[in-house]
């Protein structure tokens, strides 16, 4: 084997492990992709939580989402951060610490809030924490902080209706 071939191999290896490690990190998205996340297949249940590192009630309720994500492997958990787009480092370290990596992590990069809040849900005033629970083509929006047991109760009810 030539040295050149080996170094190319090494290069590919480094690149691929790099991207593997990155899969747990927050993905910065724009509005069309965020709207797409609210669509689900017929038998699919999704829980989307809108949060930010600066939002105290969000941080208080996140452990209930992490617990539920572990308990319901068939339910898709998505965390969408409303932090500013140059704060991915802060979001990532927070996500690691709080185990948000059990779900999919996104950050919405669009500060023109009025242009997209209604596209997520007309029921949303824009206050966070906010959560959407999707069961096929049915969507329920919760503009509230969840307390112990409240989230799992709703997920159970959703799964029973499935």
């Amino acid at each position, binding site marked *: 084997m030539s040295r050149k071939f080996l170094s190319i191999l090494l290069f590919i290896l480094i690149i691929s492990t790099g991207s593997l490690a990155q899969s747990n990190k927050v993905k910065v998205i724009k509005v069309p992709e965020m709207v797409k996340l609210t669509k689900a297949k017929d038998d699919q249940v999704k829980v989307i939580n809108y949060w930010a590192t600066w939002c105290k009630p969000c941080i208080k309720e996140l452990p209930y989402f992490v617990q539920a994500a572990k308990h319901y492997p068939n339910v898709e958990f998505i965390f969408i951060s409303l932090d500013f787009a140059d704060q991915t480092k802060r979001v990532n370290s927070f996500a690691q610490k709080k185990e948000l990596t059990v779900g999919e992590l996104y950050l919405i990069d669009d500060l023109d*809030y009025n242009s997209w809040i209604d596209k997520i849900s007309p029921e949303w005033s*824009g206050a966070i924490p906010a959560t959407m629970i999707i069961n096929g083509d049915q969507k329920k929006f919760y503009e509230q902080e969840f307390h112990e047991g409240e989230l799992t109760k709703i997920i159970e009810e959703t799964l029973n209706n499935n």
Partner: protein
Amino acid sequence: MKKYVFLTLISLFALAFTLDKGGYEVGDKASDFSLKNVDGKMVSLASYEDAKGYIVVFTCNSCPYSVAYEDRIIALHEQYADKGYPVIAINPNDEEKSPKDSYDLMKVRAKEKNFPFAYVYDETQSITKSYGATNTPHVYVLDKDRTVKYIGAIDNNTRDASAADKKYVEDAVDALIKSKEVPTKKTKAIGCTIKWAS
């Protein structure tokens, strides 16, 4: 059968009642209030004798998005108070749920930032409820008769005032000054929830 119809009606009525979050829409007449300012005096809209309208801002100490807008709220008052449209800032948060928003700490923040406007405390949260504010900062622009002309955000860039290309509150007040129709009457923005007493 009749019984079921009756029960359905009752539950529909109950549902409608729960769904109705209350609060003002554009065109409604807002109520006046009497709330304690950081200087210890009671403030009401009627106490602004020369006012041609009001910029009522639900805001607080603790919410980073409110803090991000503080300088812009000061600028609004400086720009419009002399023209008859003062800012009145109302802290809607329960101090037990959000200790940083206590009346004492409001006084501290008002002094630090040298607020040129009244910063009053809605201790019972009843004004916040009747206006229907949901997050901070949340603005209600009223005309002289307290008719709601605009509800929503200050502009469309929380992070950077100079990057905002839609200045909703300025546009609304400018329209009122010129006796014109407010161009954008209602907007939404990301913000902190109101911290309600339990």
